[in-house]
């Protein structure tokens, strides 16, 4: 591979990370919509689409390994490739959470919703905002944005606790609601974990740009 192709491949890697992030974000959005609309067909499509995200993850990992082996990248190039390797793992896990939400949506599809969904869509919206800002920070090499974005994780954690408290009242007042309440709690848990993965992405963006590896939002 010539130097020119190497630099081009570095750029393509970054573009594909954003493509993978878009796919993972759309999967989470679709999964929450499938839950809201009790749409089994849509949930099935999201579960099936997960294979495509897994395939892109493998492809990106292979390309990173090939660059490491054949180009011996150093300094900022090395950090960029190491960050891509780490970020794609987080994106792949996010897509797994979308799959988890879709499975919960299927289990709840033939039952009436326990309550109107308010906090869960709000959590999902915050996850999407975080993901967009994480990718902006990644492409613009902006460590400040990467760090600022992770503050939303606290808000998501707060919403998850709120969902838990609310569902607890349903379960205590009518134990028959417990299976449905637990499914919704699981969904909130998936969204909260997705936000944690985006926080990890923020850490990797900061490392990629500055060389400083530190935990955010601990």
């Amino acid at each position, binding site marked *: 591979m010539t*130097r020119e192709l*190497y630099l081009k491949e570095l750029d393509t890697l970054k573009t594909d990370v954003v493509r993978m992030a878009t796919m993972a974000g759309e999967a989470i959005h679709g999964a929450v919509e499938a839950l809201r609309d009790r749409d089994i067909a849509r949930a099935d499509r999201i579960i099936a689409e997960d294979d495509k995200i897994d395939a892109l993850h493998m492809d990106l990992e292979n390309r990173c390994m090939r660059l490491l082996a054949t180009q*011996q*990248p*150093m*300094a*900022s*190039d*090395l*950090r960029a490739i190491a960050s891509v390797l780490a970020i794609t793992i987080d994106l792949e896990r996010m897509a797994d959470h979308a799959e988890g939400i879709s499975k919960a949506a299927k289990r709840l599809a033939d039952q009436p919703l326990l309550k109107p969904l308010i906090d869960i869509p709000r959590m999902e919206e915050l996850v999407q905002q975080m993901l967009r800002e994480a990718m902006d920070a990644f492409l613009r090499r902006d460590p400040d944005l990467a760090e600022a974005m992770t503050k939303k994780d606290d808000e998501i954690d707060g919403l998850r606790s709120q969902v838990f408290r609310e569902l607890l009242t349903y379960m205590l007042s009518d134990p028959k609601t417990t299976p449905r309440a637990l499914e919704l709690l699981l969904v909130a848990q998936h969204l909260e974990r997705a936000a944690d993965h985006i926080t990890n992405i923020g850490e990797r963006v900061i490392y990629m740009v*500055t*060389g400083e590896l530190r935990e955010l939002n601990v």
Partner: protein
Amino acid sequence: MQVERVEPNSGLASRAIIDHAGGIEARRVHAWFDGHHVLQGISLKVAARQVTAIIGPSGCGKSTFLRCLNRMHELIPRASASGQVLLDGRDVYMPGIDPVLVRRRIGMVFQKPNPFPTMSVYDNVAAGLRLAGERDRRTLDKVVERSLRAAALWEEVKDRLSKPGTSLSGGQQQRLCIARALAVSPEVLLMDEPCSALDPAATLRIEELARALARQITIVIVTHNMQQAARVSDITGFFLNGELIEVGVTDEIFTRPRDHRTEDYITGRFG
């Protein structure tokens, strides 16, 4: 690999690989070739018993710097140098200092293995000691064996010590040259692209050897191969156009250099 450690006060037999404490320090070293100012005031403190790598594009002055450290630069016609090189706190350029003694204390290994062509393996290693007046056969035997062991070559050549040095493979010849340099018990070993003529397996052996030797002596290695610098050295200095741009812990230099010129060079943006 384990390098044998010997007592410094046990006579000539112990002259190979004495444990030296001192490092070497360049202060404002300038060098000229034919009026060209090729080194522009290099100051660099080389830590004792560490491997320091010097990297930089061709013509940046790294080999010249190495040759200034042991006064080999002045052997080149129309070349000159100024500044100080301190070994144990004393300037090797001070009037009255014998450059031959300096080169004994600061040994050198070159790009191409250069065993003395007419000499056997044994005589190559013993040459420096003989030049220093050592004639006792048993002493020479001990030093030759110790030096060849230190250079990780003994097992391969112990049964053919009388064969010509040039009959060895490229990698073995380079280790023979290292053994020859070690025989006179240097405090510092300068290695000027010592692996550029070697295959990957021989390169790896020289790198392992450099790491092992650094337990007892100070090593400065000039290399074009950045992976080699990253693998072998504790400290790395980046030279550009006769200047030392940046020096630091090797891990840092190769993962997050401070100067953008270092970054550009090691990521292949230029050079």
